[in-house]
């Protein structure tokens, strides 16, 4: 039970919690938080994979991948948050499913 395995399990737990949160939570902001959690979990597992036996870095490629991943997740989060504000403002609820309840398919434009 060395610490590397512990970190892997913690990363896996983060991924599972994030996945569960993404599916289960109803508020859109919480879904985006959960998505960030999921990617943090994946990054943790990647970096642990890059560590040698005594927690010393032996492989820089996962570090580069995680850096790219962090910047990608901040970009997607930024767009997602702006979209949430717009969804909240035009349908006065930050929820995904309220459209279904008020009859399918509101007015659409080309």
């Amino acid at each position, binding site marked *: 039970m060395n610490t590397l395995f512990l970190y892997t399990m913690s990363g896996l737990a983060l991924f599972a919690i994030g996945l569960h949160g993404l599916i289960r939570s109803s508020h859109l902001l919480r879904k985006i938080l959960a998505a960030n959690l999921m990617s943090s979990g994946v990054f943790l597992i990647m970096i642990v994979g890059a560590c040698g036996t005594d927690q010393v870095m032996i492989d820089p490629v996962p570090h580069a991948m995680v850096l790219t991943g962090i910047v990608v997740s901040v970009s997607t989060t930024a767009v997602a948050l702006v979209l949430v504000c*717009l969804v909240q403002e035009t*349908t006065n609820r930050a929820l995904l499913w309220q459209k279904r309840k008020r009859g399918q398919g509101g007015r659409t434009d080309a």
Partner: protein
Amino acid sequence: MPDTAFWAVCLVVVPLFFALICFVRSDQAAVLGLLAAGLNALAALAMTVFFVRSGPLRYAIGGWQAPLGINFSIDGLSVLLVAMTAVTGLSVSMYARGYFSLRIGSAGEINRHGHQRAFFWPVWLLLWGALNGLFLSADLFNVYVTLEIIGLSAVVLTALSGKPAARLAAMRYLLVSLLGSCSYLFGVALLYRSYGILDMAALARLISPAPLMWASLALLTTGLLLKTALFPLHFWLPPAHANALAPVSAILSGLVVKASFYLMLRLWGDIFAQVLPFAAYVLLGVLGCGAVLWGAVQALLQKRLKMLIAYSTVAQLGYLFIALPLIRLDPGSSAWEAVILLIMSHACAKSAMFMAAGSIFLKAGHDRIDDLAGIKEVLPISSFAFVLAGVSLMGFPPSGGFVGKWLLLGVSLAGGEWWWGVMLVIGSLLAAGYVYRVASRLLVFKVTFFSRRQSIPPVMEWSAVLLALLALLLGLLAGYPLGLLEAGSPFPLHACREVMP
């Protein structure tokens, strides 16, 4: 110096460069966008010509060889798909130019459509560059980044129309794309953890059944199925494709969905082909059948034209997944050729259909199918384009769809698994059902058809017709593209493959 590799690099660099310039010079965005589309088509043509002459090629970016650096692997499949993207992209770009200039013309809404045009072109060119990058790249993590660009730009394009329904669809699309990318990245992380290699070809040789490998395959596949909207995971696609602007719907249905299916082909056809049991392919085939049935039935029930076409995309994707078990079943390569023909003809036909539907929507002011009776009086060319594209979707000879389905039928009967063939036939009949339902409304003779006075610029109608014609003629000219496939057949499953050192 220009050889296949040079043009491949141009195919990625030119769209990205013009996207940046379009953003800065947003008032000339349309002109620059069209210029980029033309250059891109030229580069694709040149690459195909050089490819036929010199065969498949691996290009090391940055000069670093495969395991360390990122490689382009230019083989038959990627050249064909890049050519498909170029042709469809060029015609959609021409359509978009007419579409936005028409919309801007109407004085009332100068701001909104000027704003939409200013942002449509840079995002669309980024999407186009990422599509080319994805088809050419041979590195799993690099493909993740391109998938991310494609997903994000598709979401931005969907939300561009500004309507509440479009924003909601874009939000749902973004969450699904986030989930898909995260699970795909997790799969890549696990693969790298167990094999230490990111290059696809090198990975194909190292793959051996191991618990971690199965987990990573499951994650990769779930991520890609989410992005390809296969049957149980298709809920986000119809609202997104139906509520987007017309050129955006054409791009989404024609090209974006194909990118993640292309990756499924790479994974299931090449990298994991040796280790995967046939039952896994059958599972995907069954999901494909579900998609065909569900999509077609939903399409028949839809009240709105664009929703009908969006559900028909879900159905047509079902065919591509039905082909996967047939690829595994078939010793020769005719199942391969069938899949690629289906992909290319669906891309052209579906884009043409959405473009025609867009013109019809602009002219009629709505897209309720029942009230479109007699629109052919006002929009003869677009209605003809719609029906032509419908013919190819139905798989009616001589369209590419027909040849693809015919080959698949042959393979399924020869391989003794006749039920796939039966599924194809049922799907085609259902497709005929919903296409005829719309065609009967469009082509019925009814003199009085109230329509908005604005006339649809001819470039919009003709680009739709030409694309639909191409989808139709694809069946006749099937020899050329498939010849290309032979030149660089990426997947001689049985023959041992020459791989970089």
